[in-house]
């Protein structure tokens, strides 16, 4: 009895060690691929940076009126943005190559699935990042314009817009990743539709008189003041 147990344990340990021995070259290949591609990426970024600086790339971008690129870029430098993109793109290629090598050595056939899902994850991260940036931009726009229109609840509106965009983005991300797709679709539809309906009812029925009185008052005040003060 004890011998059988001993034998079974030995066999399992051998199997585990065998698996580890099988995986090790793959892990080594993955690390090596990452290091090599990181070095290649760094070198490419360095060369590209020198070329772009020699071309006065930042000044050219500004001259061409692509000012937005500077605003999106760290350190307000389009050159820096481009070299970073090149480095990380090379690094990602290294990651995929490493995973492929890992898969070949382990013979599990997971790489196709991982690579396929990784591309989805990357796309989801991009969507999430864009959503966060857009949410921040729109919420600031609404807040500033609301304040300049003398809306007392400008902050509330701004928060509403921000969360609306974030909820929309989250639904897109989860849908893209295929996580609880049915629930997300249904939940988002109910939430979004509910918010819009609530706003429509609030403005259309509840606050109709309030809004019209407020607008009339605003109009009267503006006309009276503009007769005396001329800003430009």
């Amino acid at each position, binding site marked *: 009895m004890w011998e059988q147990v001993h034998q079974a344990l030995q066999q399992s340990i051998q199997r585990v060690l065998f698996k580890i021995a099988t995986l090790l070259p793959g892990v080594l290949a993955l690390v090596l691929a990452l290091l090599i591609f990181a070095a290649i990426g760094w070198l490419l970024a360095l060369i590209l940076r020198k070329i772009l600086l020699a071309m006065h790339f930042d000044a050219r971008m500004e001259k061409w009126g692509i000012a937005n690129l500077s605003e999106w870029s760290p350190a307000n430098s389009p050159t820096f943005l481009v070299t970073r993109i090149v480095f990380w793109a090379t690094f990602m290629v290294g990651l995929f190559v490493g995973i492929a090598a890992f898969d070949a050595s382990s013979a599990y056939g997971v790489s196709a699935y991982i690579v396929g899902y990784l591309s989805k994850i990357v796309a989801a991260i991009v969507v999430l990042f864009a959503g966060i940036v857009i949410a921040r931009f729109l919420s600031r726009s609404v807040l500033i314009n609301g304040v300049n229109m003398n809306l*007392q609840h400008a902050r509330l509106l701004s928060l509403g817009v921000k969360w609306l965009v974030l909820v929309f983005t989250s639904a897109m991300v989860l849908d893209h990743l295929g996580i609880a797709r049915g629930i997300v679709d249904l939940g988002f539809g109910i939430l979004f539709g509910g918010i819009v309906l609530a706003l429509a009812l609030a403005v259309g029925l509840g606050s109709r008189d309030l809004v019209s009185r407020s607008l009339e008052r605003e109009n009267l005040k503006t006309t009276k003041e503009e007769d005396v003060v001329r800003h430009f």
Partner: protein
Amino acid sequence: MAELETQPEPKQKTIGAGQEYLLVAVPAPLGSEVLSSTIEKLSQAASRLSLSCPLLLAVPGEEALEEPVEMEAASHTNLPLRYVTYTQPATDAAATPWLANTATQRSIFSLANKIGIRSCTVLGTDVGFNRDLLTPEKLSLFMGPGVEGNFDLVMPLYSMQAFDDLLNKSILYPLTRALYGHRVRYPLANELQASSKLMQKFPANFEKDSVRQQGRLLWLATTAVNQNLKICQVQLGARRPQGHEGIELSDALAQLAGPLFTDMEDNAAFWQRVRGSHDVPTFGNAEVASGATDTVDVRRMIEAFELGVRNLREIWSLVLPPVTLMEVKKLSRLTPDTFHMPDALWARIIYDFALAHRLRNIHRAHLFGALTPLYLGWVASYAVEVNAAGIAMAEERVEQLARAYEAEKPYLLSRWRWPDRFHP
């Protein structure tokens, strides 16, 4: 400004080849009544000035006509006149009037550079044209310093009411004065006279300018100072701004202060060396602005300012240092009667926004929107003081603000050179 401060230099007798015309640009098209009455006045003005070279009229046309043509419309006057035409660039004058003005002025300068003239007098553009200003006396006064005195740039000086042109009073004038050291009261004028020397500083092929260049305004006085050219001002009398309908205050701030901030970035090496300011020669007698000025109800402006303080602190904190934010917050606790924004604080706020414009701390579309409630706070403070002291004090109040801008310039220099040191 009751008497002539500086006498113009002796009249230049010889005119070089290629500079035989004095160009006068009028926004009225050929055949219009406005043009014929302008010619009449111009004829009277020319007789007052002993012109040593002929006048050449520039009028708007569908195509640029660079070869001078005899003008039949002027046959009833004794003034020998020829004309050329300039094109008015397709810009949305209703939405961006200052940009449209600049585009027209550049079109005129481009034509003048091609023809080769001695000086160019611009009597307004379509947007800014004011016929009432064009009395023969004022025309001759306005053209005199450039024709007889060898000034490279003649800028107008208007008598404005206390609550008119507040964007100029609060930002454009004091900022350009503190930066470049010249006291040109209306740095963005529709009427002006420029010498060929000054006009040559502007490229002739401006149609091929980059987008960045096309979005700019012409700060002629700034360019003249940078080039060490001679500037003067001429009193053109009382005037009320047109009040462009449909333009939001934040948009106007972006259209006027934005290009000035961009100009600051380009001329940083120059204005960092300038200390203090000096008067420029001024000709003509000042007139009192007609029409009684009412007192202004500041409650709504203060409400807008307080709303900004309650809601925009997070955005302001990206632009303003904590000390300034504290001072702004303190202001929101004042009652309308005692509301007062110190000039030094307002000057520092503008300097901070200029720096944020350069560093792009926040998106530029948001920057001027965030400045609007602060600007209304300054207007409220100005109005409270002018209401209390009387409108006669308004000019003194603007002068006091301009001095505060100059006094706070070291703050701008420090922040400009070492932005991280002060960064919130």
